[in-house]
């Protein structure tokens, strides 16, 4: 199953390399990839400097968000939990906006600073949700979701305040980023993004077996031999890191962490040892697909990819809430 998904990802990546508003011929793309095209030719610039980084960002961000979704779902024992639903993306975005107001951009060192701001924002938001809902104590699904929504609204308002105080000229960029934007990022920043996502993924996947036990409740988790507090802290930090890095580099893209794990559970079952690696690959495919839609649906203009995921995600969320998860389950 995992190999099927990986094959699908490879197909999606290759297809995206050949698709785009610049209408390059397939042979032009191949010559650019193989290095035979002239250094300043259109096919080389479009393929290597525009399409490739964009594809890389989409695959990384989608994978990271889906893995963060699986992690938050296991952590809260709530199949509807997800970075944006829990308000944690909004907290990270607030951190990024604060960072940007200090003039941080996308050079390698500044990007690291931005991620630190995002991480702090994510922790702040998660702490607020925790205090409101006291999650981990087996509180009801509704309380947790409500706490997430409230925290999300609060940080969105805080972002608006910061933006209104910002220089008018920088406003356009921020608004575009706030909706989730896969515009090419410099290769140094992209490498940093990949490293952070890899750390977060590694922390989650190496604890995948324990995440399964977590479904039995905290007491059973301990009685099966797991140091519950340390596990929860590790997973929490890993999921916050994944969320924060995505928000810092491409913006708060919503619902990927809800849609992808849910579809994968139908295909693979609940075992997190399969689910976590599959989410990494499946999240990449999904966001790549969403980005292709975002770029082509109103071409030559383009939509933010976050708009597409929300258009998919919001109805999906309502559907899950109405059909799959009863309040007293």
């Amino acid at each position, binding site marked *: 199953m995992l190999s099927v998904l990986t094959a699908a990802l490879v197909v999606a990546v290759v297809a995206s390399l050949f698709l785009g508003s610049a209408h390059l011929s397939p042979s032009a793309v191949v010559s650019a990839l193989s290095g035979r095209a002239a250094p300043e030719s259109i096919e080389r610039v479009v393929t290597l400097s525009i399409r490739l980084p964009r594809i890389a960002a989409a695959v990384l961000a989608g994978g990271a968000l889906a893995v963060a979704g699986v992690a938050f779902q296991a952590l809260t024992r709530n199949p509807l939990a997800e970075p944006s639903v829990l308000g944690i993306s909004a907290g990270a975005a607030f951190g990024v906006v604060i960072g940007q107001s200090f003039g941080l951009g996308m050079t390698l060192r500044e990007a690291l600073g931005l991620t630190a701001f995002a991480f702090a924002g994510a922790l702040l938001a998660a702490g607020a949700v925790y205090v409101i809902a006291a999650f981990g104590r087996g509180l009801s699904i509704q309380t947790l979701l409500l706490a997430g929504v409230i925290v999300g609204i609060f940080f969105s308002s805080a972002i608006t305040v910061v933006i209104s105080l910002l220089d008018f000229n920088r406003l356009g960029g921020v608004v575009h980023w706030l909706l989730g934007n896969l515009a090419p990022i410099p290769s140094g920043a992209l490498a940093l993004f990949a490293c952070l996502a890899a750390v977060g993924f590694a922390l989650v996947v190496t604890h995948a077996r324990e995440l399964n*036990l977590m*479904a039995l409740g905290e*007491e059973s988790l*301990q009685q099966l*031999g797991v140091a519950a507090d340390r596990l929860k802290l590790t997973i929490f930090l890993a999921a916050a890191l994944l969320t924060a890095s995505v928000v810092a580099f491409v913006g708060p893209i919503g619902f990927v962490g809800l849609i992808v794990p849910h579809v994968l559970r139908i295909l693979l*079952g*609940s075992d997190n040892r399969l689910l976590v690696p599959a989410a990494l690959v499946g999240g990449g495919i999904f966001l790549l697909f969403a980005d292709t839609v975002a770029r082509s649906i109103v071409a030559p203009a383009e939509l933010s990819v976050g708009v597409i995921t929300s258009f998919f995600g919001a109805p999906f969320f309502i559907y899950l809430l109405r059909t799959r998860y009863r309040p007293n389950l």
Partner: protein
Amino acid sequence: MLAELRDVSFAYPASAERRERPFALSGLTLEIAPGEIVGVIGPNSSGKTTLIRLLTRVLEPEAGEVRLDGVPVRRMSRAELARRVAVVPQGTVPQFPFTVGELVLMGRYPHDPGRYFESARDHAVAREAMEATGVRELADLPLEHLSGGERQRAVIAKALAQEPRLLVLDEPTAHLDLRYQVEAATLLRRLNRERGMGILLVSHDLNLAAEVCDRLLLLRGGRAAALGAPEAVLDPALLAAVYGCEVVVDKSETTRRPVVRLTWKEVRDTR
């Protein structure tokens, strides 16, 4: 001794509503010999569940000591503890649709926490555990598709997969119908006889406890009100004092074990 609680006391932290910290358990001593079945009975909030939490180090006692095979549990790793004691909690329903087979395999975790996937031996032990509780043919079904009794047997299979020397059950028959109570009693006696497994049965159901257990501990307000053979502990006067209602104790015609019945005298008086 397989398990011993020596003069153990514990109080939960004070909350906003309850300023004082009443002891959930105080000065409790209990020994469980290898292969013995001990029942813990008592009214609500008499400390039954707290006892399980102390035994499995979910809580640490404020005074006294808990030992397994003579080793204090506070000096054991959690995995070591989980290889000795397995708990069947009340009503486990994971939010995620794990299958019976997946649940039972979770019981293998403490035997090698470093593994990513279970070994062939883990699978063999899990299969055997499912056979022992009669859920082998349900292995591929999600837990949510099972009846209450089947689900309980799946959770017991998970506990057996831990290959524990002491099996702890918290209210195994709560919310289950009559036939299941007979099934549960039969299953526990059989596991005890065939595997020499010690069993600690925490239950509201006095008759189930009397039927299954070698000894009973009757708790009242965190203290031992009585400890001994079922015939001695299930004394009408003592039960009336602890539970605050009148009962009669007969003998079962088939097993010669005590049977406790309410007299319903209080209800009659309202007629």
